């Protein structure tokens, strides 16, 4: 890597140093390569090292001095704003953008590991075409010819699947599909709670209402892992920090498997999977006895709450009656509160109904308008985030299977990894006449494609995007390349650039822009009047346009002026929950496929930092495991490390046991993210993929896959295998992994004492 900034295109680019950040950087040596050699045993050595000076650098680029670029993190749909530290033309560290309303300078593990996604040794560096059943590397010219042959024409049977998308990326994708005459655009992202969004939409009129954690005195979360993977974990993390300031808010988490959020709860309640809605309904009926709360919902809904059998609910949910009453008392005494519904409550056939029941509590308690706030109407609906869901994935696969699509294009999504066995995605995908993948890595879907186009990482390309959970309405994040493409100019291209090329083939209006960069910057420039506080020129001699451009790139995001949000018109919906499911003798255990901060839904399995980040609760690294409650383990005669076979009606897999106290006795949990059959050296062949054994059950209202509804059997197949629990070894003294052994490592005090002390202090 030389610090060779000779490329004219490069030097013309308006890279703007982020303002407000200082920090003297420095290199050990002059070399543009930086110097990262292994330390040397010899004291004084004379090495003939090369020093490559720049040819014609931008005036703020100096060897030894770091430059921060503002950009956007694309590691999950939360799209945090980031600052990337670069030196001598290399990105070195990703940090949160302190001015961002989303993450206010903070960044999670997944965001930090974006560097490894960018510098991943398994990135595809050359286009590939399937020849004789095998993918072979070809030149871009050849790939382009093939691309134009298949996509340079109108084709109504073209199906286009992307991961969560937003901003101008979404716009240009849509523009192309419109030009190509196809209506088959699908968006699939595993974790955004599509069922919850639908319920929110129905009740509050906003799919993603604004949540005020800080104001809430009590948060009752039904399986929403807002500190781990739910919507915007970093933002909720910052909110949580404030929520825990004195006077300290109380968090109650109700879920079958303890999530990261659950492990921080003041009271964690293990509940039988699929009965969260029932518990919420029972709470609602207890509240409904007070007209103060019943009055907040329509009379017929309130009337329907009368005949809830608390005893029955207690039995079905495994939550004691005292606990239910205690919860009700807490809801009454802590106002305003905030009731959240998350993936583990919604992943059932009656998921929407459960979400309705949970959100109903918010309405009854009067939280709507207090901690649940409205959104404004978006000024540019095309830029809004599209998060998609399993229903779209299913439509995509079904369409391929029944032949309604002949060309499949996949970008930023990996359906062949995520689709459960029963969807038979491989078969359906193979049916398509042409399969094209825009991809950075050799993942499952890419390796099954006919044409593979290597694309830029998010640190190499221009883009704009909108966060899945915007903190302020109209937040549009800007993404700019922070360095040369890692593998050199001309090896990979931006998705936007390729799309611009494709769409200009079909729609001449797009010929105005020579590159996607120009397109994005132009689009932003035209948006200037619609922006809140657009930046002005900062340096004398700048034109207003230059000043604006510099300003927005330095800020990393713009805020679109939007009409003030009107108050929420909450509409209670009657809840129709099924009777608790009966026991199944063959498949006695609920399977909880748990997402964790780290590997997320499997997209980060190729990042060694995240593979080596121990699971926050089970402390396992580089592996898959099954979490089983100690009592259940005793019943089944299992100890940590034993290999069990987990079988559902749709398939079976083997994994090692972790005896884990934070899981409902009738459930077993397998983390998501592992079990890749492709995806590079770090991910391939590691662990198992619980997506595969999910059974075909769908939410009745939205058609989303009921991810948590699968029931499984657990059979021991082998004795203790090598399971690396805790990051530092698997040879553990009996009690050491769990117990402080009476040593004061983590002390605990009550929140009363805390509040009293903080007040004094």
């Amino acid at each position, binding site marked *: 890597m030389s610090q060779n900034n000779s490329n004219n295109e490069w030097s013309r680019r308006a890279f703007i140093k982020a303002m407000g950040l200082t920090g003297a950087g420095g290199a050990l040596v002059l070399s543009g390569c930086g110097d990262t050699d292994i330390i040397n*045993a010899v*004291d004084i050595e004379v090495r003939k090292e090369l020093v490559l000076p720049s040819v014609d650098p931008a005036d703020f680029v100096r060897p030894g001095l770091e430059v921060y670029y503002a950009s956007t993190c694309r590691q999950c749909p939360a799209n945090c704003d980031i600052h990337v530290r670069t030196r001598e033309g290399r990105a070195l560290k990703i940090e949160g953008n302190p001015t961002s309303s989303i993450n206010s300078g903070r960044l999670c593990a997944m965001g930090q590991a974006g560097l490894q996604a960018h510098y991943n040794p398994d990135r595809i560096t050359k286009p590939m075409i399937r020849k004789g059943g095998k993918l072979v590397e070809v030149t871009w010219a050849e790939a382009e010819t093939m691309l134009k042959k298949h996509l340079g024409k109108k084709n109504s049977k073209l199906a286009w699947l992307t991961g969560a998308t937003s901003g101008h990326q979404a716009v240009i994708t849509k523009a192309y599909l419109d030009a190509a005459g196809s209506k088959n655009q699908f968006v699939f992202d595993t974790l955004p709670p599509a069922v919850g969004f639908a319920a929110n939409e129905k009740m509050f009129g906003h799919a993603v209402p604004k949540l005020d954690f800080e104001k809430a005195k009590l948060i009752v979360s039904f399986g929403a892992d807002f500190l781990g993977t739910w919507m915007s974990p970093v933002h909720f993390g910052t909110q949580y920090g404030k929520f825990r300031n004195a006077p300290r808010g109380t968090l109650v988490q109700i879920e079958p498997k303890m999530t990261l959020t659950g492990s921080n709860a003041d009271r964690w309640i293990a509940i039988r999977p699929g009965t969260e809605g029932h518990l919420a309904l029972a709470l609602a009926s207890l509240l409904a006895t007070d007209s103060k709360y019943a009055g907040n919902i329509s009379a017929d809904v309130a009337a329907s709450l009368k005949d809830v059998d608390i005893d029955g609910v207690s039995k079905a949910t495994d939550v004691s009656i005292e606990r239910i009453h205690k919860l009700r008392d807490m809801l009454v005494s802590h106002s305003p509160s905030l009731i959240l519904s998350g993936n583990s409550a919604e992943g059932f056939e009656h998921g929407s109904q459960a979400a309705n029941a949970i959100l109903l509590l918010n309405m009854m308690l009067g939280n709507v308008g207090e901690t649940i706030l409205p959104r404004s109407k978006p000024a540019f609906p095309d830029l809004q985030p599209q998060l998609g869901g399993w229903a779209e994935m299913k439509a995509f696969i079904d369409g391929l299977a029944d032949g309604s699509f002949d060309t499949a294009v996949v970008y930023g999504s990996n359906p062949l990894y995520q689709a459960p066995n029963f969807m038979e995605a491989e078969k359906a995908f193979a049916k398509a006449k042409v399969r094209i993948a825009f991809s950075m890595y050799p993942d499952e879907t890419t390796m099954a494609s006919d044409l593979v186009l290597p694309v830029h990482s998010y640190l190499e390309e221009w883009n704009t995007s909108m966060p899945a959970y915007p903190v302020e309405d109209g937040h549009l994040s800007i993404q700019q390349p922070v360095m040369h493409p890692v593998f050199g100019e001309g090896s990979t291209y931006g998705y936007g650039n390729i799309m611009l090329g494709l769409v200009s083939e079909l729609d001449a209006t797009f010929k105005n822009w020579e590159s996607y960069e120009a397109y994005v910057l132009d689009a932003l420039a035209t948006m200037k009047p619609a922006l809140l506080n657009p930046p002005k020129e900062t340096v004398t001699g700048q034109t207003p346009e230059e000043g604006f451009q510099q300003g927005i790139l330095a800020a990393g995001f713009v805020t679109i002026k939007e009409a003030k949000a009107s108050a929420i018109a909450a509409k209670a919906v009657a809840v129709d929950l099924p009777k608790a499911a009966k026991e199944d003798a063959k498949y006695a255990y609920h399977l909880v496929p748990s997402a964790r901060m780290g590997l997320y839904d499997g997209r980060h399995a190729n990042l060694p930092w995240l593979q080596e980040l121990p699971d926050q609760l089970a402390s396992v690294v580089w592996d898959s495991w099954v979490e089983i409650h100690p009592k259940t383990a005793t019943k089944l005669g299992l100890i940590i490390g034993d290999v069990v076979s987990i079988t559902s009606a749709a398939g079976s897999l083997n994994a090692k046991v972790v005896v884990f106290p934070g899981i409902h006795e009738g459930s077993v949990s397998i983390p998501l993210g592992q079990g890749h059959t492709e995806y590079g050296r770090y991910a391939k062949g590691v662990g198992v993929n619980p997506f595969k054994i999910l059974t075909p059950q769908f939410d009745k209202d939205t058609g989303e896959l009921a991810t948590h509804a699968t029931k499984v059997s657990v059979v021991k197949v082998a004795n203790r295998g090598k399971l690396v629990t805790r990051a530092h070894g698997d040879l*553990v*003294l009996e009690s*050491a*992994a769990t117990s*402080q052994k009476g*040593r004061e*490592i983590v002390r605990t005090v009550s929140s009363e004492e805390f509040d009293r002390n903080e007040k004094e202090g």
Partner: protein
Amino acid sequence: MSDYSMKNDIEWAKINEDVLASLESPRKAFWVVLGVCFALVLAGAAAEIYQYNNGLGVALMNNPHYWQTYISNFVFWIGMSHSGTLLSAILLLTHADWRKPIYRFAEAMTFFSILTAAIFPIIHIGRVWDMYWILPYPDQRAIWPNFRSPLLWDAFAITTYATSSALFLYIGMIPDLAICRDKAKGWRKKLYTTLSLGWMGRATEWIAFRRTYVLLACFLVPLAVSVHSIVASDFAMSIMPGWHVTSFPPYFVAGALYSGCAAIITLFVLLRYVFKFEAYMTTEIMDKTARLTFAIAMAWNFLNLSEYASIWYSHDMFEHEMLIDKFTGPYAGVVWSMLFCATVVPFAMAFKKVRHNMWAMFWVSLFIQLGMWLERFQIVSPPLASNHEPWTQSVVWPGLIQLTITAASFGWFTMLFLIFCKVFPSVSMYEVKEMVYHRNKHGQKKLQNIDKIKDDMIKTEEGLS
């Protein structure tokens, strides 16, 4: 003066013959044993090269098991070296003349165990090539080593101890080397000529020799005690539960003498058997050695138990748990075997029958040595396993590399010792002659002759001063 069952009428010439016979061309068995030892050394060298190339991780040490058998072996071999000094120097100063037939090989053992021990820091250390930084010497960096570190004291102690014990061994051997010189032919002649430094057996030489020898002995005794105290302070100066024990220095010294005496017994039996030294290494001497060993064993046991007691009554949470883990945890097997070998077995030496049975003593001494090796292991590993921080507590057993190198150290030691036995007289001829003389003095034989020599010596001394 007691008799030690040694025949009174051994001719001085016979002594020379008997001892020099041990230097004659080795038998086949010698080559076989030497070959096995050499193979072990080669295996160890291969293991070390593998470890050097790949990193210490291949030896299965980890966090928190930063130290393991390399350190316990180091302590073991340093401990082993104490017996030679004890027998030669302390017994010399206390005029216990039963030491005379056995001190030479004990001293050789001392020196070779130091050589063996000195290898372990080199194997143990992460960057061997920079190891000389531990020595204070002026260099271009203008920095010094850390004088507060017990490891630095170790470096000083070991080099001093190795030098002085080598000198002690060598100087004590000079009169014997002269005897060898007079009898030898070929390359041996050259070697002995060089090494005997022109010893002619003149009275002045004897006077200078005696003075030097006693002076060195005086110097060595406190040195030996301090060396193992310093090795003990490697542990005692740390704050690890189970290491941070005030009684460690005497405990280590006692343990060192204990294992060293056991090693002497082992070699005693072997040499006596192989070289047919029954005339010199008599059962009476074995009896004395065994009694001494038994006494040291009791001292060691006392210190061991008092260590447990002081931990138990300290009411320190960390120490308590470490002690409980030691006896019940994953390393309990090691601790209990150690207690069996080093606490129970030595009681066999309370019986005269055992003390007088060479092969019984052989096995007892082997058990004691095994026990003492395990003792060193249980000093190093279990405290690291149950350290302060529960999250890092884990169990690691030494892997193949460590065991190979451990075995190689025994091979290395034996190899050196075998070569020594064939090159140098393993029984001190002149001191045995002295013993015979002393006994013959009672028999009034050759008395005048000797007295005349004595007179000459006195005269010469006066003349010199």
